[in-house]
């Protein structure tokens, strides 16, 4: 046994994040760590890479007990982690990031020539092509990930922890990542692969440990088990993996966007005269790789950003000059991409979070005062309706799991009874059960003849939910498909900028 974690316990206020978890990793395997959000995967890995100390339990490497006071200790033992959010300096080159904290010196100066060589050497050895002179901010997310992997390798990582590495990648980039993982495995490295996507587990791992509610619920050989079985272990009940959705005839045009042009904060044109409609009873999905104008599109539609030109009509009303609050009142609701930054005030209680956007409306507003008795009633209702798992309405939003935070946002936004809902990455980082719930809610909403604009980087989500798919690339709509007409490959090519797939 290469690595053993024995009876790891880690507590947080009000939660037992890791409840006597045992994990065994064999040398040279790709080991999946599967679990819903809040199941304790990240906590366990933080313990393993020295970011957190366990309250109880021990870690053994090759049978020897080790203790990690910090990340460096873990690195010394050959454990490297590639975090979900990359730890790179955007304005540094690949080489500069690569050597950061571990600079080769020539006298007092950094030996840049040597550093560059080191990058090339290592990238050659593992078949990880990177441009050593490119700035991080100019290269794709997939490339940035490679830099992170290379960094870990250069520090002598034998065991590589990849925390949800596919979340930000295009389908093609995911394939590349698998290839890299396999070649690392061949070179004798061990990989712990954290994910909550079953199909990825099936595809790449040798064995998988499933966590639920901070406990290990199963350790299995991947090839011996079906996806449905894994899902049941992870969630604790049967889960429908495919979204079930009936045909629904779209009605009148609900939102119409015409020649919309907008810049980002640096003044670069991010939306180039975009035109599209969303009809009542229709889910329109916008597929695309992150950073191709989706964020700007959402911000312009919701009134957080001024457009340069073009118009937005919602249910025959021109809303392009209205402010966010007026658009909200006009029938626009929005599930933001970054729920912790835009969707919730993390240090507000749930009640206060539910009030966002309602604080000037009856029955909560009473003259200058807020009627907290009404607010409490409202909160209890939403918590029950959307099954938000919380000890109470006074709990701070930040203490809830991602899925429950998202449910709270969904509850609040649906309660506005909007005509059109903009859902940006509504299931990012969520677990299977929460995704199932949210997808069903979106479809239910559509079935009430409401319109949904879905923006997602998850191709499967787009394919599963959308009645119509638009592909965005560098601020332009480069393809349009009806549901069922598009294949992931076609979409992937268009998303990557190739116009060949266009029909």
């Amino acid at each position, binding site marked *: 046994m290469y690595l053993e974690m024995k009876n790891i316990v880690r507590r947080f206020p*009000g939660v037992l994040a890791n409840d006597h978890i045992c994990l065994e990793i064999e040398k040279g395997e790709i080991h999946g760590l599967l679990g819903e959000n809040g199941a304790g995967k990240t906590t366990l890995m933080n313990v393993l890479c020295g970011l957190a100390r366990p309250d109880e339990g021990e870690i053994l490497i090759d049978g020897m007990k080790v203790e990690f006071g910090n990340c460096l200790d873990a690195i010394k033992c050959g454990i490297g982690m590639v975090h979900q959010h990359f730890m790179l300096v955007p304005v540094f080159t690949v080489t500069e990031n690569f050597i950061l904290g571990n600079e080769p010196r020539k006298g007092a100066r950094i030996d840049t020539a040597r550093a560059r060589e080191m990058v090339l050497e290592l990238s050659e050895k593992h078949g990880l092509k990177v441009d050593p002179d490119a700035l991080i901010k100019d290269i794709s997310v997939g490339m940035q990930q490679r830099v992170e992997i290379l960094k870990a390798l250069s520090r002598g990582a034998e065991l590589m922890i990849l925390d949800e590495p596919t979340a930000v990648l295009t389908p093609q980039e995911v394939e590349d990542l698998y290839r890299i993982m396999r070649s690392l495995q061949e070179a004798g490295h061990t990989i712990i692969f954290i994910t909550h996507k079953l199909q990825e587990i099936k595809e790449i791992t040798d064995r998988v440990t499933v966590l639920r509610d901070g406990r290990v619920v199963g350790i299995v050989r991947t090839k011996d088990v079906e996806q449905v079985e894994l899902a049941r272990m992870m969630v604790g009940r049967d889960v429908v993996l495919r979204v079930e959705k009936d045909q629904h005839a779209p009605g009148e045009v609900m939102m119409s966007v015409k020649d919309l042009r907008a810049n980002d904060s640096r003044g670069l044109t991010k939306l180039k005269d975009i035109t599209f409609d969303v009809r009542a009873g229709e889910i329109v999905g916008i597929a695309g790789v992150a950073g191709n104008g989706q964020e700007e599109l959402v911000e312009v539609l919701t009134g957080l950003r001024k457009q340069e030109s073009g118009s937005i009509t919602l249910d025959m009303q021109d809303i392009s000059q209205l402010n*966010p609050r007026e658009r909200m009142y006009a029938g626009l609701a929005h599930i933001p991409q970054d729920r912790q930054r835009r969707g919730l005030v993390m240090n*507000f209680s749930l009640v*206060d979070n539910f009030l*966002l956007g309602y604080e000037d409306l009856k029955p909560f507003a009473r003259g200058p005062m807020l009627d907290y008795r009404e607010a409490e009633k409202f909160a209890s209702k939403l918590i029950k309706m959307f099954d938000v798992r919380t*000890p*109470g309405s006074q709990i701070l939003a930040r203490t809830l799991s991602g899925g429950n935070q998202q449910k709270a946002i969904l509850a609040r936004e649906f309660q506005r009874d909007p005509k059109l809902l903009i859902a940006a990455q509504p299931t990012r980082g969520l677990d299977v059960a929460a995704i199932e719930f949210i997808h069903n809610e979106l479809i239910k909403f559509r079935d009430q003849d409401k319109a949904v604009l879905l923006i997602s980087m998850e191709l499967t989500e787009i394919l599963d939910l959308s009645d119509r798919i638009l592909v965005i690339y560098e601020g332009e709509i480069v393809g349009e498909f009806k549901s069922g007409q598009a294949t992931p490959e076609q979409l992937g090519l268009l998303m990557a900028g190739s116009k060949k797939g266009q029909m």
Partner: protein
Amino acid sequence: MENEKNRKTSPLLALISPTQFILGVLLAFIAGAVFLWVFGESPADAYGALFKGAFSSKRYFAETLLSTTPLIFGGLAVALGFRCGLFNMGVEGQIVLGGMAAAYVGYAWELPLLIHLPLALLAGAVAGGIWGAIPGYLKAKHRIHEVITTIMLNYIVFQVAAYMIAVGGPMKADNELPVSPDVLPTAQLARIWEGTRLSGGIFIALIFAVLVWVFLFKTRLGYKMRAVGLNSSAAEFAGIKPGRMMVWAMFLSGALGGLAGAVEVLGVHYKFYSTFSPGYGWDAIAVALLGLNHPVGVVASAFLFGVLRSGSITMQAIAQISKDIVLILSALIIFFTATNQTLRPILERLTLRLDTRRAK
């Protein structure tokens, strides 16, 4: 039923903030003792004299409450700004300006008491409020950091104040001193404790502590301000206008500062002079920090700083220990309150342990 559940999860969590407060003060006094000892003084004598000076007689205690009054207002001013994510460093200037405006209305206009006193107080509040709103506007519109603008505006006020009562100045009284004329009796705050200088201002301060609490936690505007303070992106997303909230918050913050000055002038000095505030506006920042920006905490820490202020004078007189040691103590309190923020997770974990043990 919901409520029961809440209580079950956090019976001890509610005690964390007071614990932080007490711990900060305690650590500061211990560290202060070390300083005293290094200087060759007896910590016991010094602290004894300090508390004697704050509590031992009616007059001393009145003086303690007298310093507490402007500190409550000032602490509330800073706390309210913080709640909206703004650091109002201009309270000292707002106090001086508020005092100036209140004094002017107090001596220049002749009105019946019921109108005159409230009007003088209002003048102080409005003057301070406008002075606070300017940095708020600059921050909202032009993203100029309020720490810089509030500090700069202080210096303008200090110079204007000196000019007002200098020889030939527009507010100069008809005598040899650099002071304004006396405030008319109709605009004076009544003394409430015979033989002392204590005025009804302390009650006004306490009323405002309650008002600020209600404002922050029970009104729409207060709610919006807190939302902006904790996460202006989310607030903006929900249709709240962060810029507008910032201007309002700075106006109200400045108004509280102005009231501090007005109450000081109308209740203690009965006239305006440029140095009537011995740095209450600066202490106010420490008061708000120690009070964790909560009105209850502000009242408690204002009282503590009041004790330090009035006690230090006696300490110097009796124990012959420079009252500057109190400056060191205040600095230490700020230091430990700030570092105490790192204690919060530890305290939370500790509570959790206790909770689980009790559950067993």
